[in-house]
Each structure stands twice: as C-alpha cells, then as structure tokens.
C-alpha cells in the first residue's frame, strides 16, 4: 500500500528524512513510531504530496506519488498534525465543503455519507453546532470524520488520539479496529508506544530521520528466552534452580530457561507452588530503545 525507496528530505542544512524504505502492506495496521522531531510528520507529508521529496521514490496504492496524486489521494483518508476546520461553520457544513473539493465526492450521496461518518465518530448530536464551539476532542473526531468521508482504502493518521480523554481513546481505537476488519489499511504515526502496541500489527521506528526498525509486532515481541515465575516459595525455588535465576523482585523470579512448560513441570514436581508462570517477552519499549541506541552508536559521527 505504501512503498518508499531511499526517501530523503533535506530542509536547508537539516536532513529531516534520510533514505527511508517504508513497506506498508495491505491489511496492516502500521505503527510509525519516533520521537518528536524524528521526521515522522515530514514523511507523512511527503506521502501525501504536501512536502516534495529531495530524492527517493514513493508508491502509494501502487502508484507513484506525488505524480498520481489525483487518482491516489481520493482513496486515502488523512489526519495530519491535528485537525483543522473552518470555525465559523458547523461540523456538517465543514464536511460538506471538504467533500465538495477535488474529485471523488459525489454530491448525490454526500448527505448520507456525512450522517454516517458523524455517527461513526460519535458527533451525530453536535453536527449542526459551529466548530468554533467544539472541544479539542470533538475537533479531533471531526478531523477523523473528514478522513472517513470517502470510505478510503488507506487511512494515514498522525497522532489520532491527541486531545482525547481515555473514554474517547477507547472509542477511536474501537472504530479503527472496526475499519481494519472491513479491510482498511491503517498507517498510524505516533510517539505513544502503548497506543501502537495495543493497535498495530506492524511497526516502523524512525530515529533522527532514519528508519532503524521495521517488522511485524509479533516478531519484535519475541520471547526473551527467560521465564517469569511467581511463587510464594521463593527460597525453595531458588535452591532448586540454582544459578539459573537471573533476578528476583519480591515473590517473582526471572529464570534463564526458555521452555516455560518444562520449567513448570520441574517446579511442581519439586513441590514448589506456582502462582503465575510465563515466558518473558520483549516489550515494544525495549525493542525501540535497543534499535535507537545501536543506531546512535553506529550513526554518531567521529
């Protein structure tokens, strides 16, 4: 759905995006992670034809961007760096105006499509109110509604849960998962690890303009080769697993044994009561930190 090769953007002396090879596949919920200022937004803007790449190539929905913008972008819904709307007009009027712009928004179905998306994002009751009177969360939802107006094949969302309360975040997450189930590919740019970890199937990590990691979330969150055991009989267990216990936190032991089932059998056999037991997995935070740190070491100029 999105494929870039050696995508590079230079703003004067600053290399904002440096040779990025993105690969977002159909059906992905792709988490595009990176610290503030790492080049995420610039990349998103290049994908949408707002910022012109210094070098490199991009394909979105299989067509070259920005050349094929006119046929690609009507199938893409986007939320870039926060929502924006005309404050003196109502939410509905804003959506109608936005839909009337550019190709791909037939006026015949406009009214019903607007009703649909307002319902989806939970703004049905306030659609006729002026946007100037909307809260930050409501504006965010309106931005999402605008992105969904033409039932896009690809959603490009930059920090979509900004300004939402926990309840709103859960609703939006539910909405995105629903869209994904119906076949929408989602490209989610975020600096919130937890959000990406909960939602995404694939992850790319950008660090100071360079893509340092890109893989399936399940692969990244592989077992670490250690097993986490929780037991009231800490001392017995330690004696039994002599030398294999790496760390102890109160009633929890981190054991250097990859096979959780075998470890369980061994403990139970020795009469150790087990409260909890399971393989330890890398957290996304650890993976991201590791990726960005090695890059720091390798990429630092002498």
């Amino acid at each position, binding site marked *: 759905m999105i494929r870039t090769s050696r995508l590079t953007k230079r703003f004067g002396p600053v290399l904002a995006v440096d040779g990025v090879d993105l690969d977002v596949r159909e059906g992905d919920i792709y988490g595009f992670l990176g610290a503030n200022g790492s080049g995420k937004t610039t990349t998103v*803007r290049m994908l949408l034809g707002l910022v012109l790449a210094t070098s490199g190539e991009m394909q979105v929905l299989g067509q070259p961007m920005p050349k094929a913008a006119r046929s690609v972008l009507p199938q893409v819904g986007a939320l870039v760096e*926060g929502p924006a*709307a*005309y404050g003196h007009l109502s939410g509905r009027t804003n959506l109608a105006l936005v839909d009337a712009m550019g190709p791909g928004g037939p006026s015949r179905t406009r009214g019903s499509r607007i009703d649909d998306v307002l319902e989806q994002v939970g703004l049905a009751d306030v659609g006729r109110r002026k946007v100037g009177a909307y809260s930050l969360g409501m504006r965010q939802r309106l931005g999402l509604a605008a992105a969904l107006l033409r039932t896009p094949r690809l959603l490009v969302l930059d920090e979509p849960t900004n300004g939402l309360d926990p309840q709103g975040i859960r609703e939006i997450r539910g909405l995105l998962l629903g869209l994904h189930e119906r076949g929408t590919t989602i490209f989610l740019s975020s600096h919130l690890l937890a959000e990406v970890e909960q939602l995404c199937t694939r992850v790319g990590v950008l660090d100071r303009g360079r893509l340092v990691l890109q893989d399936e979330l399940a692969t990244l969150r592989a077992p670490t080769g250690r097993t986490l055991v929780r037991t009231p009989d800490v001392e017995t267990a330690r004696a039994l697993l002599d030398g294999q216990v790496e760390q102890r936190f109160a009633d929890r032991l981190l054991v250097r044994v990859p096979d959780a089932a075998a470890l369980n059998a061994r403990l139970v056999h020795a009469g150790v009561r087990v409260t909890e037991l399971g393989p330890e997995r890398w957290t996304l935070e650890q993976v991201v930190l590791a990726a960005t740190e090695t890059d720091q070491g390798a990429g630092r100029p002498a």
Partner: protein
Amino acid sequence: MIAVELRKMLRRPRTWVTIVLLDALPTLVAVLLALTDLGPRPGTGPAFLSAVLSDGTLFPLAALAIVLPLFLPVAVAVIAGDSIAGEAATGTLRYVLVRPVGRTRLLTAKLVSVIAFVLIAVLVVAGTAYLVGHLLLGNQPLASSVSGTSLTPQQVLERTLLSIGYVTLSMLGVAALALFLSTTTDSALAAALGALAFLIASSLLLTLDAAHALQPYLPTRYWLSFVDLFRDPILWRDVVRGVLLQAVYVGVFLAAGWANFTTKDITS
C-alpha cells in the same frame, strides 16, 4: 473548486462586514452633503463630488472615487492576503490539498473568489450610491460631463459600467500582489500589510517630483483615470495605459505566486 471557494467567501461574516464598512463612508458623505449643502469647490476633493449636489446620478462615481484610493485596496489586500496564508495558519490548507485539490486549481479558485469579492464590493458601493444620490442629492435631468458638456443617461450608464470594469481591474493588481505574498507566508496579516506597503510606497512616490521617471510604472498611477471616461470625448490615453500597466502587474504577480505555490513544501 471555484464554487467551493465562492461559497466559503460568501459564507464568511467578514466578507459582508467589509462590504458594509466600505459602503458606509460614501453614504455618510452623501448624507452630510445633503444636510449641509456644502459641496467641495470644483477641482478640489474627490472626483465628481463637486458635481453631485446638482446631479445625483454622478454619485456612484463619486462614491467609487472616495473608496478607491484607500478603502477598497485595504479590503482587497485583506481578502487576497488571507486566501492562502489564512488557510495555512488555520491548518485547513493541508486538508484542502490532500483532498486532493491541485495547487494551480486552488490558486485559480482563490483568484476568482477575490475577483468576485471586488465585483460585489464595487457593485454594492455603486448601487447604494445610486440610490442615495437619487434620494438625497440633486436630481437635475441632465448629467454633465467633467468637460462641461451634457451626457445622456445612457452615456452615463455605459461609462459607469466601464468605470466599474476599470476599477475592478485596478483592484485585480492589488489582489494579484496580495495573493503572491499570501503564498510566501503563513501570516495573512503580513501578506495584506506587505501589499499595502507597496501601494503606499507607490502613492508616496507619485507625489515626489524626483521620482518622475518611475511614475508611469507605479501601480497606483492610473487608478483614478476612470474619471477620464467622463470627459467629452472620452480621453482614452491614461485609461489604456492603466489597463496595460495593471495587466502587466497582474501577470507578473500571478506567475510569481503560481511558481512559488506549486513548488512549495506545505509545512503548516
């Protein structure tokens, strides 16, 4: 896209407030003239104003001459300066462009909407002035030309329409400049003020004898030449020069605006 831009312009409260304010000054002048009966002596004050006490049908032209030097350019500069920069500042520009709306198309639509604004403003000013002049000011049947001979009502109408076209073209020069500046900044205020600074500089140089060589090329040089359309016979020389000069300014600034906007990184 042109229809969308027109809707946006017409639905903005600011558009109508601006037009009402534009209209207020000449109307106030008419009321004052009618109440006091103190017209400026011929040859002083805004063009035509000395004549309107006896002939109210000339008041639309007097009204245009009143708003043209400052009020109308300010309004046009504000609207045109806001066109791209204002959308950039509110963030709506990026959403318009990813719809997608081609950049050339957007610029064209903005220009058309500014032209529409100028036409509406000029027509409202002229229309109100016609009513006001008819009701409050002198109603002698024969309209007199600036040259002292008489013009038939039909001649007055034709020449008034020509004047409206000429004023619109003059304002298009301002609009093109403000539109160009609007593509260079995210601040609508900076674009509008930049355009005005250019016009003020031009007006200032027109009063300076040392700038004589520059004067035929200054954008405001021929603005008031529409008065010549009311001479008998029409004195075309300055009107034609004004049209050509504005056409050059419009062409140059639109080309610059287009070149800048279509190759620009939209980072707002």
